[in-house]
């Protein structure tokens, strides 16, 4: 099996691999949905169908030694950054093969080898943490960057304001990516937020900002590249608003019945998979047949993943007592 680092390298420039990863994420989330419905996944799940271009685009631009702070809606980011579907699903099923050994669960993905810090289940919490990672890079004289991915709803929480201000005044190498998928839980963003273009909030911090089409991986890569270059070269933080759409409900069994009629369908016309397929076909890199093959292969692959994870051992009781403290080295 490939390591997460190898999987990360795969999508660096290879457009087909990037597309495959997007298909992987989509298929993964669909399967989670089914597993949850079947009672094989407990707790909650927050799926990211519709945001695959954003997740893969971010991962393609970043280096593995950059770091990402994402959220409970983190399966896509995790897979994009390179985590294997086994380590993500294993975690979601609470098994020892999960990236966190099963004690974390769906909301807590982590793999330090590709820069995925533990995703946070607290809205906004990752924003100052990403700034802090960037602070370390700045002090250490490294050209790495920190990235915080968070939702539209998160732009209303205090940590957003404080985190952006701090990053701006210290000119930290951090990129704030507001994934505006139109909803925070069951609330449409316009019901909780009196402005439409969330990225303009960066004006409060004298910080560069722009929005981009989150359904189009090329747009994501372009915007990310601009922001990452600025950060690496000492130009400080950027707030990017990626306009996407949450195809699924908020979590668990949410059917998202609160959406206005036709809204989902409108956005589905710009399904990031479809947008990418069209581009790849147009440029001759893929044919419709190859696309079908990729999709059907992925279904097979994902069934293997499910089998592997179902067969993986449950954690021992002792494991809940581990990893709370750092083992202390023999002291001087």
């Amino acid at each position, binding site marked *: 099996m490939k390591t997460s680092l190898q999987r990360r390298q795969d999508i660096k420039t290879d457009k087909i691999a990037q597309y495959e990863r997007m298909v992987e994420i989509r298929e993964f989330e669909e399967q989670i949905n089914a597993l949850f419905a079947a009672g094989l996944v*407990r*707790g*909650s799940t927050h799926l990211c169908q519709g945001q695959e271009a954003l997740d893969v685009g971010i991962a393609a631009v970043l280096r593995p030694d950059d770091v990402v702070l994402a959220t409970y809606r983190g399966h896509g980011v995790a897979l994009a950054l390179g985590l294997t579907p086994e380590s993500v699903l294993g975690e979601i099923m*609470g*098994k020892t093969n999960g990236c*966190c050994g*099963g*004690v*974390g*669960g*769906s*909301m*807590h993905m982590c793999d330090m080898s590709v820069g995925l810090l533990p995703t*946070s*289940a*607290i*809205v*906004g919490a990752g924003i100052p943490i990403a700034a802090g990672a960037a602070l370390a890079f700045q002090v250490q004289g490294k050209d790495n960057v920190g990235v915080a991915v968070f939702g539209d*709803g*998160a732009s*209303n*929480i*205090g*940590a957003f304001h404080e985190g952006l201000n701090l990053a701006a005044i210290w000119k930290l190498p951090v990129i704030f990516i507001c994934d505006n998928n139109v909803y*925070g*839980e*069951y*609330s449409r963003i316009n*019901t*909780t*937020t009196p402005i439409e273009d969330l990225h303009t909030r960066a004006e409060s911090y004298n910080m560069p900002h722009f929005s981009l089409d989150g359904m189009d991986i090329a747009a994501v890569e372009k915007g990310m590249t601009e922001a990452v270059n600025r950060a690496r070269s000492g130009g400080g933080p950027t707030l990017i608003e990626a306009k996407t759409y949450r195809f699924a409900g908020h979590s668990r069994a949410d059917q998202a019945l*609160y959406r206005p009629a036709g809204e989902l369908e409108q956005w589905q016309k710009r399904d990031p998979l479809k947008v990418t397929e069209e581009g790849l076909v147009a440029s001759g890199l893929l044919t419709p047949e190859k696309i079908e093959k990729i999709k059907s292969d992925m279904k097979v692959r994902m069934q293997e993943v499910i089998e592997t994870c179902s067969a993986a051992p*449950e*954690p021992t*009781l*002792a*494991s*809940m*007592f581990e990893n*709370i403290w750092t083992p202390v080295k023999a002291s001087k």
Partner: protein
Amino acid sequence: MTAMRFRQAIVTALADEMRADSSVMIFGEDVAVAEGPFKTSEGLLQEFGPLRVRDTPISEMAFTGAAVGAAIMGMKPVVEIMFMEFLGVALDQLVTEAAKLRYLSNGTLSVPIVVRASCGSGLGFGSQHSQTLENWVAATPGLKVVHLSDAQSAYSLMRAAIQDPDPVMVLEPRILYGERGEVDTSLKMTIGQARMIRSGGAITIVSLGQMVNVCKSAIEKSGIDVELIDLATVVPWDRAAVLNSVKKTGRLVVVEESPESGGWGSEIVATVTAELFGSLKGAPFRITTPDVPVPYSGVLETRYVPTDDDIVRQLTHAIGTGEKPKTWWQLEGIKK
């Protein structure tokens, strides 16, 4: 008596108070249009309208603070902190403002807010969404803290909390939302009064929240003549009820869904010991969760909280020997 789910008991209490008192209002994330992430405000927007029932942005500090201000000016706001952990971004408003403002106004104002929060483990929500965290809101003169344990206490204590002229934090074990129980809507419960769930002579168990059910099941399995007290109010807790019970039984065990270090039960044990030292028949002790973050895996989470079997084992040992039993993780040799 009416059979209803725990969450319906909450809705009913909210609705009854809103009918009785036009100053009662509710707000929080997705409590209005969506009727609450746990459906604890079903029908309220429709009945009471958007002035009194409101969705908020994801801004716990702002809406808890807004509740404080509205309360001072004559409203009785009930706000919902979806998961108790989220109070970690808003604790200031509850503990450093709400609880102290009457003091800091020389008694010229009151802050009748209710802060509701779902809490507790058992549903696979992971370590940032599964704690009870009474410790955050204890040690706060001016703040009352109640913890619900069934549909009846959900109904009666929620009404009492809303009627209370001062800030009250209400903890709602998330795992109980779907549970059915009988509710007598005419039954009043008083904040600060414990509930005698079962009287008995062999030992006193003091418990709270979702652990009350587990204790009941342990008592049934064990056949021991336990006196079971649902403390119901954590602050200020019912010293008289607990002391009277332990005077009778001579033994005390506290069963908690909170960690060995820092859990609320220490105060019960410490107080009872200080007051009744001479008349105790055995070491009072606590049955707690281990000092670990709440694990996600079902296999682990099930053992994280005290189980009925483990309670039976510990009760039997304590009554037999008068000594504190070992924890399960000591027995398993995992941690001493």
